[in-house]
């Protein structure tokens, strides 16, 4: 049944949040301006203000100025800060999020995109896929935004040439595939002139798919949270009116009065006596998204940051987190350092024990394994050790409790997705370091720096790796102490790997294959002589 047709007027539906992303200057803000303009949603006054500014600047009417409202943005013709604006089609309401394309403002792009349910990736038809096109797409995939539409813009500049459109979309689709995303539609547009945005264009007779507006309406609300396991992170405990209320927002699933519950990581157990939503002090249930006050049947001691869950369907109380992280700090993320860690309503201190992979999200190039640093706007696979157990899910199971931020000097600098967790009970698992053929990609050799590994290690190598080491390819390893070096010895013994080593002040250098210290050291420049 088509609900919208049965309505005399469009209802106020929960809005869908759409982020517009893409390389700098490819036309994100212009597209939003066009969408508003062609649906008559720009107030007359606002339009007059933009006209005045453009006249003063001596330039034609700039649709992007609807979003780019700051003086600095208009002077430099670049979006600096993300903006949200509300828009409604005949089907439903939208929050349209404009993201800046300039690399310098990536943190603002992430801020905007982190709230989105779906995305439009804009690519300039003339310029094609560029660095930030790919970087933004990668960030979408990390954020778990899987509904994506590709809009190829500025086709007026290439005479609405179908060949050009096909070439650009092939490129973009190829990249999306490589990061696990599929575009729902590929739309040829001119944001400035309004082709296929709201109005169907006559200049793209070869195209029969939806316009941008139609594509928006085809997105579906991304709220699966209700279907996921019930979780309520405890935000605070209020002791007023002779009551002890545990307040928080149900992040997933549904909690009901009378449910037996367990709190993680403490493991304390009780039963829900009442669910309060003032002025109502007894609602029967609360679903994902609802902020409530919970009263329990027992006087248990629960701290803010714990997660309330059904007795037999709990999150992990994790001490070790394996994650994908994107870093937004000007100062690099450093292995071996501690950062603030926030997940759900919990805080902890996390040590970066390893940056297992350092990746450039624009080229998808694996830059380094076991790296010391992750630079601004890079992405990495990292391992964190927490100073105390914290309740968390994997991102795949439950995004709301499977994503975290890293904080440095009080400010959020990184966003992460939990890939897997190790539980608090039992010994810390052995860390497995995988050595595979990919490590040998660089003909000048590769350094695997394991100086941050202090615990139990296990090395695992694949056949290609071993064969190529025996054939004389160069690879160096560094260890800080005897324990990890011992693990290496076991491995070398087992696989007949030739090596030479040198003990130094702060650890051990190992050269696999032919012993050639001098050239090794010259290559890696780091540390005292032999």
């Amino acid at each position, binding site marked *: 049944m088509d609900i919208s047709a049965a309505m005399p007027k469009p209802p106020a539906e929960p809005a869908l949040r759409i982020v517009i992303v893409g390389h700098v200057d490819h036309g994100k803000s212009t597209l939003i301006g066009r969408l508003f303009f062609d649906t008559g949603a720009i107030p007359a006054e606002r339009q007059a203000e933009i006209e005045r*500014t453009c006249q003063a600047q001596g330039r034609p009417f700039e649709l992007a100025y609807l979003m780019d409202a700051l003086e600095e943005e208009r002077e430099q013709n670049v979006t600096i800060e993300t903006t*949200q604006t509300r828009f409604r089609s005949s089907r439903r309401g939208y929050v349209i999020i404009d993201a800046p394309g300039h690399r310098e403002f990536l943190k603002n792009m992430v801020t905007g995109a982190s709230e989105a349910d779906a995305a439009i990736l804009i690519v300039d038809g003339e310029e094609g896929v560029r660095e930030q096109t790919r970087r933004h797409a990668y960030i979408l995939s990390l954020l778990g935004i899987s509904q994506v539409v590709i809009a190829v813009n500025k086709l007026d500049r290439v005479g609405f040439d179908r060949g050009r459109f096909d070439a650009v979309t092939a490129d973009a689709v190829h990249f999306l595939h490589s990061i696990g995303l599929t575009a729902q539609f590929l739309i040829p547009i001119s944001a400035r002139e309004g082709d296929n945005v709201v109005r169907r264009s006559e200049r793209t007779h070869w195209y029969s798919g939806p316009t941008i507006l139609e594509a928006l309406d085809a997105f579906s609300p991304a709220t699966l949270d209700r279907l996921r396991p019930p979780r309520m992170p405890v935000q605070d405990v209020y002791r007023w009116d002779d009551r002890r209320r545990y307040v928080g*927002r149900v992040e997933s699933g549904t909690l009901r009065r009378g449910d037996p519950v367990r709190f993680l990581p403490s493991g304390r157990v009780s039963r829900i006596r009442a669910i309060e939503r*003032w002025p109502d002090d007894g609602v029967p249930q609360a679903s994902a998204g609802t902020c409530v006050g919970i009263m329990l049947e027992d006087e248990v001691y629960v701290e*803010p940051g714990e997660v309330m869950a059904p007795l037999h369907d709990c999150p992990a109380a994790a001490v070790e987190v394996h994650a994908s992280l994107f870093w937004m700090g000007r100062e690099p993320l450093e292995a071996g350092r501690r950062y603030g860690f926030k997940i759900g309503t919990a805080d902890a201190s996390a040590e970066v024990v390893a940056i297992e992979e350092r990746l450039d999200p624009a080229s998808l190039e694996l830059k380094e394994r076991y790296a010391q640093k992750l630079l601004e706007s890079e992405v990495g696979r990292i391992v964190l050790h927490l100073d105390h157990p914290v309740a968390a899910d994997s991102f795949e199971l439950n995004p709301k409790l499977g994503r975290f931020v890293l904080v440095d000097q009080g*400010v959020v600098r990184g966003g992460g997705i939990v890939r897997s967790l190790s539980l608090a009970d039992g010994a810390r698992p052995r860390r497995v370091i995988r050595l595979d053929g990919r490590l040998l990609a660089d003909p000048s050799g590769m350094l695997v720096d394991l100086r941050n590994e202090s615990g139990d290690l296990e090395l695992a190598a694949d056949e290609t790796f071993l064969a190529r080491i025996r054939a004389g390819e160069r690879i160096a390893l560094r260890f800080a102490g005897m324990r990890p070096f011992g693990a290496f010895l076991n491995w070398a013994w087992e696989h007949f790997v030739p090596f030479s080593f040198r003990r130094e002040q702060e650890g051990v250098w190992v050269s696999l294959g032919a012993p050639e210290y001098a050239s090794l050291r010259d290559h890696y420049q780091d540390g005292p002589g032999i």
Partner: protein
Amino acid sequence: MSLSPSQTSELHERLEAEYLDALENQTIFIFREAYRRFENLAMLWSIGKDSTAMLWVARKAFFGRVPFPLVHIDTSLKHPVMLTFRDKIAREWKLELLVGQNKEALAGGMGPSKGRFECCTALKTNALQQMIDAHGFKGIFLGIRRDEEGSRAKERVFSPRDRDFQWNFKDQPPELWDQFNTAYGDDTHVRIHPILHWTEMDIWRYIRRERIPVCPLYFSDGTRRYRSLGCVPCNSPFPSTAGTVDEILAELERTSTPERAGRAQDHEKAYMMQKLRSLGYM
């Protein structure tokens, strides 16, 4: 299958309820997060519809109480009806009310005739700064909304001000997944914006649903009403016959004039609001 008129209106109501609940929940979450993270909080209450609706949500967040003081910046140019309304609500809702005023500037004859930019900065921004300094507030709740005006659309929910009160809008910290930045140094305070994501229409729909009392100046006296409340000399009513919340909503559906059209300080010169706000204006 088609819906009967009563089924249709039921569906409308349910969808609107879900929609307003989502806005409200987000606001409650922000309130509670701020309350958990900051020692010394206050809420700026302009007596307008936005901050009054926000105040209502605060009562929901804290089970009927408001666990921090409310600050009203009185420029001495406010309509007497606003002050009567303020005192009545403060009494009924048992609020701790602090009234701030830049007495020095007023004694020096500050007023809009000295220039609107100067007047707003002296009587509002500076009065607020004096209040914050005097009480050592670390977090201030403000009822601004993204849809009001361009520079507000660029705001974060938790938005730091430096020791000189300034907003560094060119380099704001990232804010994601409701993990807000709350740990700043001692010489700063943080502006907290619990209703940043609401629109003017949302506010009125919410006022209707919750039956929140609002200042009578919003309703037409038969010929005119105020759409936004400010200081008497710089804020003009516009012709309207809307005398109820329903009529106001119907009127807003039809109009394309922006909400702050009657607010003179917004239009004095280009980027006026951005400039005012970068200095610490609300």
